[in-house]
């Protein structure tokens, strides 16, 4: 046991000198690339990298949440600026964070801190078409897939990671996949999506 811990420590000590790797996860829905999939990597053995959660912003523009899908580390402070001339009333009933915020045009409101991992679904009490998703993850290693379906997670120390993929229309969660990252790595992830409403 002591030997294993020592070995793991050694791997990460070496990694610290060797430089960090980039993991690219190519997300597709079988036939085409999937945009806005959230991908996160949790190191299997090492203690979680202590990196403070970066704040982020989910704005309201033309009665739409921008961005519609976000990912943040546990502890992140998220602000909800209202860039519309009209009011909004943002809420979440998700177990990871229940809250509601009345947002008036040009009136800043204190950010909301998300201290539990999970998917938070956001809505607006006034405009029922407005919806956004915030995935709160317990790791600083995360990314969102671009228009080509590529989610790039940079700065990974070599080692084994549990990789998870989520999308608002995910039909069935296959669960995380363990991947060994030695150097820059590309991984393909095929997910099944429900039809858009």
């Amino acid at each position, binding site marked *: 046991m002591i030997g294993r811990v020592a070995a793991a420590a050694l791997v990460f000590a070496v990694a610290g000198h060797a430089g960090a790797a980039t993991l690219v996860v190519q997300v597709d829905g079988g036939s085409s690339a999937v945009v806005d999939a959230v991908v996160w990597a949790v190191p299997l053995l090492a203690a979680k990298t202590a990196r403070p959660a970066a704040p982020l912003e989910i704005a309201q523009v033309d*009665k739409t949440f921008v961005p519609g899908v976000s990912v943040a580390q546990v502890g992140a402070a998220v602000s909800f600026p209202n860039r519309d001339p*009209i009011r909004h009333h943002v809420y979440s009933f998700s177990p990871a964070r229940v809250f509601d915020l009345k947002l008036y045009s040009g009136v800043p409101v204190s950010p909301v801190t998300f201290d539990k991992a999970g998917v938070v679904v956001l809505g607006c*009490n*006034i405009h*029922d078409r407005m919806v956004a998703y915030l995935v709160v993850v317990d790791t600083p290693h995360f990314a969102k897939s671009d228009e080509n379906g590529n989610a790039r997670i940079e700065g990974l120390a070599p080692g084994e990671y549990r990789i998870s993929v989520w999308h608002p229309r995910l039909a069935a969660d296959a669960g995380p996949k363990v991947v060994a990252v030695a150097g820059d790595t590309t991984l393909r992830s095929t997910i099944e999506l429900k039809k858009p409403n």
Partner: protein
Amino acid sequence: MEPSRWCAPLLLMLCLVCPAAIAAPAAESLWHRLGGDPVMTRVAASTLTQVSRDPALNRSFDGVDLPKLTAKLVEHLCSVTGGGCVYTGDSMKTAHGGLDIRQREFYGMVEALRVALDANGVAEGEKNELLRVLAPMKRDVVSK
């Protein structure tokens, strides 16, 4: 005690009691005379359905959650007509802020309300009484 000695306090007491006794029964409130919750929920829903479908009026209702707005409108109407509800929504000024409501849109909604009140059998007197209560809100709703 001489009659004149206790007559004044008695009269005073009656005067204090009388207005309270008249105002007390909820049955006399405008809200009740309008038909209360069942009628006014139909009136509010029908008014909002009408304005949200009218191309000349629906601009400010685009994307709006109508069932939630209907519930708030009923609560508001009930609170301003003596129905005893506590209105939990924003002030008229705040609720309409940034929507840039024009006068013709305001009167368009008033007309839709009139039609809905008629369709739901609200009497002329009560209808006018309600419109008189609502009229001063125009200054908070319409953009100058």
